């Protein structure tokens, strides 16, 4: 059993899908994360896909993934009784995470200045589409809106074609990762240095912009007057790199150093016998091949057409080239490397039963963290928290339930 990095901390997680991954990271690292859900359940519970394709609040796989290692209580913070209970809980918590539209918690008297008055050690983090301040701060967003507004969509697609969005609703990750980093740093500052909590504000748009920093979109426009434009799947920043077709599907790779190009060129020559690839003009670092993008891509296709993805991967690696497979999630579940390293974690859930979940990308013999419990049932921890910690009786709970408070 790993010793968990963030074990002593209590986190109240009020967020929806915009911030759920942050709570999951803290929970997987050992924090006691309690989701505070409206009595009808977090909106994520009603988002597909569902196990067995049955719409059911305990069967959303979207919810299940983003809420591992968390507990759940129900609480209606829009009632005055609910607000009082929340203030009491926040008074003893280390962290509150929220993703409501900017201004909503203030309208309930539950914003940071109010909560801080009662608990100056509190770290409170907001994760919203465009941050707490500025002209866009009230704008709503779905994943694709964050992807569009961050400029991510200008990176994907064919030249002159429709912009595309990355699969798998990727904007739900970066902001939450930044938030988790900020929270961990704020807790360190509080406990090792100052004793004080603080307020953290993360914008999903900005987090996403940093996730393609190497393309420097703003710098490019300022320096050259140009915008980025998509160039398909092959040869992105400097050829050869990206995804190329091969005998039985796709493979991917990147050539970074001049030595790697020479190695690749000789391998290609062995396979095709085409002398063109050995031409001096292609040799060197990134810049050497940019003027020859189409020709380099054509040479790679000619070469790869004779080999399977598996052959390219294994032989390429033998030659110390960064050749990799293009995997589906089915391939990942069967992948030798992930399986032998114990990357998948089996978690049992009372309704959906056992599934294999990705762990955190950490390997350490002694300490760290990993998902340790499947997502909670709605209100699973009501008795533990309300009776065990706040001293309500079971009778009180029925009253609160009838009143719609919990």
């Amino acid at each position, binding site marked *: 059993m790993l010793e968990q990095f*963030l074990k002593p901390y209590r986190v109240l997680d009020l967020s929806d899908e915009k911030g759920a991954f942050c709570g999951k990271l803290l929970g997987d690292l050992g924090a006691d994360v309690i989701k505070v859900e409206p009595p009808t359940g977090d909106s994520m519970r009603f988002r597909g896909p569902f196990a067995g394709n049955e719409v059911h609040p305990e069967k959303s796989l979207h919810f299940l993934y983003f809420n591992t290692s968390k507990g759940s209580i129900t609480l209606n913070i829009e009632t005055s009784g609910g607000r009082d209970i929340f203030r009491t809980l926040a008074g003893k918590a280390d962290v509150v995470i929220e993703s409501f539209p900017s201004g909503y918690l203030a309208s309930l008297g539950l914003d940071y200045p109010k909560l801080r008055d009662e608990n100056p050690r509190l770290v409170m983090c907001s994760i919203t589409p465009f941050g707490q301040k500025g002209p866009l701060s009230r704008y709503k967003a779905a994943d694709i809106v964050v992807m569009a507004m961050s400029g991510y969509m200008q990176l994907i697609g064919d030249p002159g074609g429709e*912009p595309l969005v990355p699969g798998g609703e990727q904007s739900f990750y970066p902001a939450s990762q930044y938030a988790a980093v900020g929270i961990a740093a704020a807790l360190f500052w509080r406990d090792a240095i100052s004793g004080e909590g603080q307020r953290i504000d993360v914008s999903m748009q900005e987090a996403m912009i940093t996730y393609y920093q190497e393309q420097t979109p703003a710098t490019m426009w300022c320096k050259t007057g140009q915008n980025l434009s998509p160039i398909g799947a092959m040869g992105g920043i400097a050829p050869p790199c*990206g995804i190329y077709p091969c005998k039985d599907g796709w493979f991917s790779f990147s050539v970074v150093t001049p030595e790697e190009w020479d190695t690749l060129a000789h391998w290609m020559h062995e396979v095709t016998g085409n002398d063109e690839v050995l031409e001096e003009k292609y040799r060197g670092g990134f810049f050497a091949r940019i003027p020859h993008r189409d020709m380099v891509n054509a040479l790679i296709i000619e070469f790869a057409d004779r080999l399977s993805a598996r052959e390219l991967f294994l032989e390429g690696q033998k030659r110390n080239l960064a050749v990799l497979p293009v995997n589906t999630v089915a391939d990942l579940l069967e992948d030798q490397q992930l399986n032998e390293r114990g990357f998948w974690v089996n978690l049992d859930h009372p309704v959906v039963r056992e599934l294999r979940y990705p762990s955190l990308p950490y390997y350490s013999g002694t300490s760290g963290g990993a998902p340790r419990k499947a997502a909670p049932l709605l209100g699973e921890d009501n008795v533990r928290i309300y009776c065990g910690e706040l001293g309500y009786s079971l009778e009180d709970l029925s009253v609160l339930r009838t009143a719609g408070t919990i």
Partner: protein
Amino acid sequence: MLKKALDGVRVIELGLYIALPLATRMLASLGAEVIKVETLVSPDMMWFAPPYAPGAVQSDYRLLKRNITLDFRKPRGKEILEELVKKTDIFMTNLGGESLTKYGLGFDHIRSLKSDLIILWQTGLGGSGPYAGYKAYGRPMQHASGISMMTGTPETIYEVNVSYADYHTSMFDALAVLGALEWRRRTGQGCLIECPIYEAGVVTMGPAVLDYQANKVLPERRGCRHRYFAPHNVYPCRGEDSWCVIAVTDDREWAAFCDALGNPTWATWPQFATPAERVRNVEELDRLVAKWTSQCAAEEVMNIMQAAGVPAGVVAKGEDLAKSEHLRGHRFFREAKYYTPDLEKPGTRWSVGGTCLVFSEPLYLSKTPARFGQMHKVGQDNNYVYGELLGMSRKEIRKLQRAKILA
């Protein structure tokens, strides 16, 4: 004087490329003293990353970091690195396990130098297992970790035209050492954590991984359409290559969407009455929506939708980001100076290259704000680190320079 969240924490970075340098930049922004150890005997290829002059986009990776030259592959260089490790809290590297061992810097040895040292080892496919030591970069790694098979159209896959998996890895690197620091504060113990790029990418495939197990469904590539929502797409707007996305995610937003369009008759058609019907008849729906959007400017479409409470946004380009009043208000992009290494003699000759726009960390901390600064030249902090931290005399430092140990 600004308060720093990681005041007093010292980090040594022995690493190249994107993920690890961005992770340590984050730690530097949070107030740690990061010392980047670099040897220009084999320079980081990112100095020469396209499409600009060498060094032009290096500020992003190097802001606020101290920088020393050290050829740790030489015995004396290795000894100096060991002295430095004894004075540090966190040691972060993405060099291969084999090379580290070859230079006598295996992790068992490094750990023996300081009992409470935190070591973060960023790997590609992993430091053990059948693919141990395989070569990987963040760009092809995104394809291995599964995203591209769910990106694009039914006919073909696309790549996100960046080293996508690197960015996830950088945040996982940073989070690991912060967690370890907190754990060390409580227990007094150090640790070694390995963080592979591969797994950092796979973590973002979670819902699809569960869906495949529970329902035997692989994600379909739908362009910008959504499995559960419609309208949900990128729509052409007035002007050349001008686009706006709209995402209607529930019935309330659908009603607001119809209102915002002035309730056209088609909005009441039975084939659009429920979310399931709208998804089923998405071709026709998208055609009708596009007919409307193509008469308006992208920004107009966004503002009309947002005023009605419907998620929408323009497909931003570099120009939009550079001019954005919202981002300017956050001081998100800021000017930073960069240096250009001489291609013939990198590291020995430098010129001020100019400035470029660099992002500030998207993390607003009210009491310990993330810092922004300038990049240091390679070797700029040799005197501070070797002189002040390790107590060498100027003469000794010059001697090491002449012996190409500090190179």
